[in-house]
Structure formats: C-alpha cells, structure tokens
C-alpha cells in the first residue's frame, strides 16, 4: 500500500516511516511542509496519506489545509490526520465533503501500534478513524439530535466505535457482547437512519458520516 507522509519533526518522521514500513506499507514520499505535501499528494495519488496538522511554513494548520485542498482536487483521497490535540472543528472540516476515507487521531494513538495500523488501513479502505476524544464529545452533544434520537444508548455506543474505525469483531470485544449481537445493532442503526440495504461497507461509512456530521 502506497503512503505519503507529512511530518516536520525528523524524529517523529523517521519513527513513523519505520513503523509503517515494518507493517508492509510503502512510503513513497515523506515531506516536511505544507506546499510539498500538496504537490506530493497530487503527483503520487497515494492509497493513503498520513499528515501532521501543524507544518511549516506557518506552523498553524497547514497540514490540514493541504489535505483538504488535495481532497478537493482528488475526491475521496484517503487522509489520516495526526495532531497533538483534537478539535471538533477540524474533524468537521475534514468530513464536510461527505466522501469518507478520513481519519483524525491524536498522535499518542500511535503508541498502540496494532490499532494505529488498523486505523491507517481503515482509512485507506474509505472508512473513518475518528479519535475517541472526538467521539466522546459528540456522544454527549449529539444524543438529542434528529435522526440520532431514535437510537438506543447501546446503538449510540456501537455507532461511536464504528466511527473510531473499529471492526464488528473489535466492537464485540470492547463491549463484551457477541459479534452476532453487534451486527444486530448495526442493522437496527442502518434501518433507523434510513439507509437502504446495499453493500455493507458503504452503508457503514454512510451511517458514520451521518453520525459525525450531524
């Protein structure tokens, strides 16, 4: 799987390259600033980009802006954004085009290598990988909104975990229920959100997007 990486701190960049290559990703280019990132994304069209929010030259949200710009030029280009802090506002901007293939994680999530690699793969496959911090803020805020009001609190939980990018098996393990029970919940979620039966993965992404975009 071909990856473009953007991270300005050499220490972290090298670490991420090592981590990704150890898991059979092919890092086609690693850049350290916003303008090069945009160029690299447009020329390489990678399977997934892993991007730090804060990059030179402005040291503000350069990485995020470059990622959004690249997705405007190449719709659905999978991007996983890493940051020292998460902002609901940025999550919303990343999700605004409603095409999926978006991840937004705290940098510390890299510590759990297995989960991080899963997240990269999830995003590359067009899914979402939202940080649990984003999800937990949404959980308290979104509960009363239409059409999510119809969901039970268990279904909310399941949908939140889906948005984090977990598979049904992972959700089952996390909630101490069977996988069969999880798929019962997901089917009920799809029905309540009015998502007609189609290829399961697609419905999953759309349910999550409905949840995250509100």
């Amino acid at each position, binding site marked *: 799987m071909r990856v473009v990486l953007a991270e300005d701190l050499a220490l972290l960049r090298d670490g991420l390259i090592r981590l990704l290559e150890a898991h059979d990703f092919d890092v086609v280019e690693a850049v350290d600033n916003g303008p090069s990132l945009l160029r690299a994304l447009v020329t390489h069209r990678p399977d997934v980009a892993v991007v730090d929010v804060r990059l030179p030259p402005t040291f503000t949200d350069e990485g995020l802006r470059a990622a959004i710009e690249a997705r405007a030029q190449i719709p659905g280009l999978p991007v996983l954004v890493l940051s020292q802090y998460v*902002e609901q506002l940025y999550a919303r901007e990343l999700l605004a085009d409603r095409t999926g293939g978006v991840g937004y994680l705290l940098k510390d999530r890299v510590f759990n290598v297995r989960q991080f690699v899963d997240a990269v793969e999830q995003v590359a496959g067009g899914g979402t990988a939202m940080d649990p911090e984003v999800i937990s803020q949404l959980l308290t805020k979104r509960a009363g909104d239409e059409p999510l009001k119809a969901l039970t609190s268990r279904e909310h939980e399941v949908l939140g975990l889906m948005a984090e990018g977990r598979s049904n098996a992972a959700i089952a393990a996390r909630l101490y229920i069977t996988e069969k029970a999880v798929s019962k919940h997901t089917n009920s979620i799809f029905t309540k959100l009015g998502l007609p039966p189609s290829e399961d993965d697609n419905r999953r992404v759309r349910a999550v997007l409905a949840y995250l975009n509100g």
Partner: protein
Amino acid sequence: MANEAGKRLMLLGWALTLLVLAFVGLALFIFTITGFGLVLVSIGIPMLLVSLPVVRWYANFHRGWAGRMLGTQIASSYRPPRPGNVLVRLWGVVRDPATWRDVLWLLVNSIAGLTLTIVATVEAVFGLLFWWWPKKTALYADAQLIKWLLSPSKKALLASRVRELAESRAETVDTQAAEIRRIERDLHDGAQARLVALGMNLGMAAEAVERDPENAKLLLAEAQAASSEALAELRGLVRGIHPPVLADRGLVGAVQALALANPMPVEVEADVPERLPAPVESAAYFAVAEALTNVIKHSGAHRARVYLRHDGELLRMTVEDDGRGGADAGAGSGLRGIERRLSAFDGRLDVTSPPGGPTVVTMELPCASSSPKTSPSSGTG
C-alpha cells in the same frame, strides 16, 4: 400640542427649581466659607463635616442635570476617600482641588447662575404664552456654565487615568506571576514527574528483558501509559496557555471550536473581518471561554449565544444564555477574573442578569486590526 405644552411646563419647573437652588447654593457657600474661617475655633470642623458632603451632593445634582440638558455626561473628579478616621478623611477632602472648584462654582452659581435662572424663568413663562418664543436659551447657558466649571480639569483627568493604569498594571503583573507559578507547579508535579517514572520503568524493563521477559512487558506497558498521561497533561496545559486553534484560526475560529466542543449548544455569530493583535485575541478568547464556563457552571441554561463584532476600533463580545439569571460581577470570581484580564487592555465588562434571566455578559476591548499572522500561501479557509 399637549405634549409640547407639557414640555414647556417642565422647563418652567426646572427653571424655578434651579432658581430656588441658586439661593440654597448661596447659603451653602456662606456656610462653608464660615466653616473654613472657624476651623481654629472648634465649631468650624463639625460645620465642614456637614457642609462639604452637602456641597458634593449639590454639585453632583447639577452635573447630572446639566449633563442631561446637554446630552453628555459630566464626570466628577474627586479623589478616592483616604483610609483613616473622620478627621483624616476631612483633611483629604479639603486638600482635594476638586473641592475648591466646587466652592468656587457655588459662588459663581449664586451670581451668574441666579441671573440665568431668573431669565430662564421669564423665558419659560413667555414660552408658555407664545409658542414661537425661544424657550431654553438661558437654561442652556446655565448648563454650559456648569459644564465649564464642574467638569474635571485636564490635570485631574490625567491623575485619575494614571491611577487607573497603575492599578491595572499591578493587577496584570500579579496575575501573570501567579499564572507562571501555576504553570511551573503543574509541569513539575505533572509531566516532569511522569517522565521520570517513565524513564525508571524503561530502565527496569531493560534490566528485566532477558531475566524476566513477562515482567519487562508489564513495565513497558506501564511506561507507555505514563507517556500517554504526560502528553494528555501537556495538552491541557498548552490549551490553558495558548490554545493551538487560536494560533491557527484566530479568535473567530477558536471561539467556534470552543462552541463545538461545548456540551451545551452554543451559537456563534461573528463579524470580525481581520485578525486582531495576538495579545488581544488571547485576552478576548479567554474572556469568552470563562463566560461560557460560567454559563455551564452556574446558569442552568439550555443554550447560549456568542456574538463577536469588531468595527475597526472596538471589539465587542456578548455571551447570552437562557438560564436563571442573578449573576453578580462582584461575587463570581469568574466574572472578576474576566474583568481583570480585560482591564489590562482598557477593556470593560458589563453584566445584566435579572433574577429569572436571561444573563447577558458584554465585554469590550479597544483595539485596531492587525494583518493576518499566516502567510498568504495557506490556501483554503
């Protein structure tokens, strides 16, 4: 027409009131001067104790009237009372130049003011009889006279400004120092301590890795947890110093982010066309954040609204909620904190919060726009 006649009657009323008051003023002047004359005989001091507060009240009454007449505000510039017993306070009042200006005005008022109010009375009577008669020239002149004599002198204005600045600077310095101490303590007890623990765990894991691999794994997991916690603490600390989103997006973006992260629905309406100077952005952001925290903690509100408006010279921020009201700028340390932050920039805080709500907190910061901090290369908005 009835309305117009009522107005003219009002003018007559005022002219007569001021006429009578001019006589009272003359008496007050004589009484006060006699008081000064008799200071060495013991009766003078009690006389002044009575007369000087009356003089101030009398002057303030005229300031209020003339201010309304001229459509402005006429400030007084008395020095703040000196701490101490009655005699010390009296001495403070006697030494205050504003007191002497008041006394001088009393004399002028009992001559010129008296004349003007007599003319004004005549005018008002004619005004009632003939609709074309100019009805308030004399009253207007009297108001101008009061404004001229009772407005604070330039020197007094400067002195009070200097006093204000010295106070707000002292408060700012204290707040800054306390803040830095808090940050130092947080780093010392938090992230630093966790990094020490992490290093220790790693050291022990390195030792145990061959002898006891199971234990080494456990130690490594602990080290990982410690580094996560250290990062979380540093994140919190950084947010408290200068939230990254404020640096990225400026005041409006940061307040929108704040609203989104808030458990309560918060509507943000903003009209701030340009980036503001960084210190102002920071003060404004923390003021809004504190006001919203107050809403969540104390108001029992279901929703809140934030308005931000910058008209080139003044940044006005309003935080409204639909809660139970009854907030008091004096009592709530939160609101007091906002006031302190804003005063360093000559800003103001105003709270209206009738019992039953709604609470409206209005904050103002004078400031001119600065050019955006980001370079033009940063494409999309």
